[in-house]
């Protein structure tokens, strides 16, 4: 592939540095009664990665769940094929808990809108915050992240591809041409 010759947007080392910085910010804001919720697919391994960092910085474990937002999408009547629905696994009660949503790329904001609807169907969290590895701009809804790894200027034709083990073969972020 031609793209693999170009330098990645983030190497594994840089991803780790950004995740560590986000972990420090989350710990500084307080991790009492706070849990992470990764948005499928890439948000889940990122949330686990982030949880490890939080545990080593904050000296206490945080719970991690995973959220599938496909049933809450606003474009189901527009897509030609139904996305595959995977299970949502939230091994803790949402009521009264501080939730940090973890996702790979913040783009239109529609995924996050869907994720918030999904969470609220499970209960009433104390708050919902948003952690994103990449913010690529192009928002279509009034949504901003509380914790951002890297802000990237992109064109509409570009695609930000986040690869995280074990969903992918390696840990890397690339800016691709074309969708």
């Amino acid at each position, binding site marked *: 592939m031609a793209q693999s010759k170009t330098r990645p947007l983030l190497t594994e080392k840089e991803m780790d540095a950004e995740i560590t910085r986000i972990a420090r910010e989350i710990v500084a804001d307080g991790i009492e009664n706070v849990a992470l919720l990764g948005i499928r697919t890439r948000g889940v391994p990122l949330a686990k990665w982030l949880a490890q960092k939080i545990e080593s910085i904050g000296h206490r474990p945080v719970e991690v769940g995973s959220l*599938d937002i496909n*049933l809450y999408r606003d474009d189901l009547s527009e897509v030609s094929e*139904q996305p*595959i*629905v995977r*299970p949502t696994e939230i091994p803790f009660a949402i009521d009264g808990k501080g939730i940090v949503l973890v996702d790979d790329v913040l783009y239109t904001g529609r995924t996050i809108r869907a994720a918030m609807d*999904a969470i609220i*169907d*499970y209960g009433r969290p104390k708050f919902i915050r948003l952690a994103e590895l990449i913010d690529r701009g192009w928002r279509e809804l009034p949504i901003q992240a509380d914790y951002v790894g890297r802000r990237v200027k992109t064109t509409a034709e570009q695609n930000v591809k986040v690869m995280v083990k074990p969903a992918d073969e390696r840990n890397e972020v690339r800016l691709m041409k074309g969708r």
Partner: protein
Amino acid sequence: MRLSARHILSVNDLTKKDVTLILQTAASFREISERPIKKVPTLRGRTVINCFFEDSTRTRLSFELAEKRLSADSTNISKSGSAMAKKGETLLDTVRNLEAMRPDILVIRHNQAGAAAQVARETSAHVINAGDGMHEHPTQALLDLMTINEAKGRTKGLKVGIVGDILHSRVARSDMLLFRKMGMEVTIGGPPTLIPMCLAETFDVKVCHDIREALPKLDVLMLLRVQRERQGEQLFPSSREYARYFGIQSRDLESAKDDLVVMHPGPVNRGVEISAELADGPRSIILNQVTNGVAVRMAILYLLLGEGLKQ
């Protein structure tokens, strides 16, 4: 991903890939029924009409709950409450009237084989066959397969015994088709008068009138209800005699594998085809079938409407 079929009329409409996709989606949907608020907004604004021209409790409720948990607008027509049927309107006229109200999905239960297929030719909505006469009941077969897969962790290579009134059973027909499609071995048992001729050749199954002979090798035993309403008294003398020769009790299973599971599509006639202690015992996964029924129907509704705009 989408299904290759526009309607679910027969197991034959589905490819192996479709079946796998339905089971995978259903497994994800099961969690929704475990939530405190059992509802997702996915099919908001979609209209489903459940047309039950033949009585049903379990299947109808299962479809209704599946529709409601996906936020579809669902409404029902029943045999007794249907002015259309009572006043002499034909099925096709009824369907044309329903069509004029723009439903997205029609769920059809009817006592005539082929009714759902006939409806499908007259409507632009998707049609799901919820049982047509003695023909097929594909969603039941799918929930049976899901329950077997869940209990055993696999389906391919499993040996399934189906015992009872095969002649009148649309569940048996759909089960045989689906289980064979997915690489399972099927052995049929029951009174010779209730087993159609040429069954072994037609469905590529084994026939063994006394299932007890095949029992030691089975992984799954499916017992079917004797359908008195479809047959009168000619085919076997009495329920007591049926129970004695073909009914299964726990002590019949002494030669069976330790992990043999027992299934029944309901309604159960305790003491006839299955004893009460077997139906309630540790081998029984009868109620898992009911739980999975809602999830399988949610998956089918979701996947059918995935075609987006209607053609």
